[in-house]
């Protein structure tokens, strides 16, 4: 860090910040602020009337809203847990394997494993629906090959399996991101550190656990918080695979789909921007809470190494 010394006004700081701050404020913050403040209003006879926190009281007090909200939140937490337990460990493992020196075909693996990440939700949702479709039979046929046909059920249509199935599809799609980030972090560990470790006889698995893992912890921190934010803002996959009603029986409803229905409406349901904004505000607070925990409790405790 440059020492905070007495210097004339440092114009360059302004120049560095200005373009980002301007575009970001104009196109993102002001429209969003405009939307969030709607949560304090209600449409009465076609005019917006200030109602204070009444929309939030409705959201939490009226079972027509609160049941849906808690259901969506619960599902969202499960969605996040699966990502943390499946996506990130797999991502780290793949990156660790890929970064081992002299691995053949590393470039091929790397490219191939990242492919799902570059596909759009439209394609992913559709392709998996086709594959899991009981009619088309790719999944049942495949399971038949390994003698597990009896285990096949129409996962996307069953309340108890649908959300987990979708979470795993999402993991399938996004595992490339933690893999790439960790991979970059592992590659930037200097040779000298590794060599020193090998001189001390630390190799293989214990080298990974004792030397590399502590060094990539900041990257794992970033991945966790990105996963958190991404999962609580998720919407598209559920929407393309299950529709806005997040069936069966709302079992795959997450905050994003719940918000979408409330804000924009769906089929005969008419959008209610005020209630939608109240939900959006809650989502914002949840995510803000998570990010603050990360910034103030975790990030400050992580040791960072300058190479």
């Amino acid at each position, binding site marked *: 860090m440059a020492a*905070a010394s007495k210097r004339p006004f440092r114009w360059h700081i302004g120049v560095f910040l200005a373009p980002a701050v301007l575009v970001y404020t104009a196109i993102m913050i*002001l429209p969003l602020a405009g939307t969030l403040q709607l949560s304090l209003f209600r449409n009465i006879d076609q005019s917006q009337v200030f109602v204070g926190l009444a929309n939030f009281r409705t959201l939490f007090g009226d079972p027509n809203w609160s049941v849906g909200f808690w259901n969506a939140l619960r599902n969202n937490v499960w969605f996040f847990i699966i990502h943390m337990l499946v996506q990130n460990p797999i991502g780290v493992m793949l990156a660790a394997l890929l970064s081992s020196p002299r691995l053949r075909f590393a470039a091929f693996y790397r490219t191939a494993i990242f492919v799902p990440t570059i596909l759009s939700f439209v394609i992913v949702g559709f392709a998996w629906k086709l594959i899991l479709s009981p009619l088309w039979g790719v999944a049942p046929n495949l399971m038949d090959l390994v003698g597990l046909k009896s285990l096949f059920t129409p996962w996307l249509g069953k309340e108890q399996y649908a959300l987990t199935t979708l979470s795993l599809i999402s993991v399938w799609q996004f595992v490339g991101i933690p893999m790439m980030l960790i991979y970059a972090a592992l590659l930037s560990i200097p040779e000298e550190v590794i060599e020193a470790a*090998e001189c001390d006889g630390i190799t293989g698995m214990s080298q990974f656990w004792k030397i590399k893992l502590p060094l990539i912890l*900041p990257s794992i921190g970033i991945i966790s918080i*990105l996963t958190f934010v991404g999962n609580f803002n998720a919407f598209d996959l559920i929407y393309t695979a299950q529709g806005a009603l997040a069936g069966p029986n709302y079992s795959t409803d997450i905050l994003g789909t719940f918000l979408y229905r409330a804000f924009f409406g769906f089929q005969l349901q008419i959008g209610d921007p005020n209630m939608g904004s109240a939900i959006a505000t809650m989502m914002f607070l949840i995510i803000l809470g998570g990010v603050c925990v990360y910034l103030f409790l975790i990030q400050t405790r992580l040791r960072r190494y300058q190479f």
Partner: protein
Amino acid sequence: MSTATRSLPRTIGAHAILLTYTVIALFPVIIVIMNSFKSRAGIFGAPLTPPTPKTFDLIGYTTVIGQGDFIHYFQNSLVVTVASLFFVLLFGAMAAFALSEYRFRGNTMMGLYLALGIMIPIRLGTVAILQLMVASGLVNTLTALILVYTAQGLPLAVFILSEFMKQVSDDLKNAGRIDGLSEYTIFFRLVLPLVRPSMATVAVFTMIPIWNDLWFPLILAPSEETKTVTLGAQLFLGQFVTNWNAILAALSLAIMPVLILYVIFSRQLIRGITSGAVK
């Protein structure tokens, strides 16, 4: 690094795991592309076999091509993605540098302010954004999309890049200052090349949601001239929802350009990542 430390079983194990995962990653894509070249009976009769002379059929592609100008959609997507990416990286890196390099009043606040955007889906600002674009005559232009995507990509870019910029050695920058380099030169000549790997990462992060976005093209630029590939593909799916030949062909057409582009650029990407590591 001695070869002695790498035993054969471990190498085989690594390949087994990576290969398994590669199959999992590619399987759905291959299924879709493979079946897009088959007749309707072939698709339903034997979905897992590659097209044979008996089942080979291009009917899906002939249905799809001629229904929409996919090459033009593709150009639109490319223009929007590349332009947004450029602005996100440039503006994002500049802001991240300011935040990580200098201590000034409001630094933390500014960091938090710029991170706010990660936490609310920008979709919620749709109506206000659309009003803005209508008022400034930008509806149905690619400029509107570029502006929105630049704003949307900035928070994450700043967030990740400032994390990485903190790892750039102070000695280097101070040495530059002693040599009388301006702050701009230090940023563009010394720091930027060093954070190239993280720039590549951010580029990928930023590019994917932009390329795949359905919502803003639908709202801001739905006209035939400005349609993007994803929007085009979605309309196709709606139109041919029961015609699996056409569906699979449309999906393949949407997958293949991205795939080719990715395979070309992934080498650049990896080179970016590794060149940063081996300095």
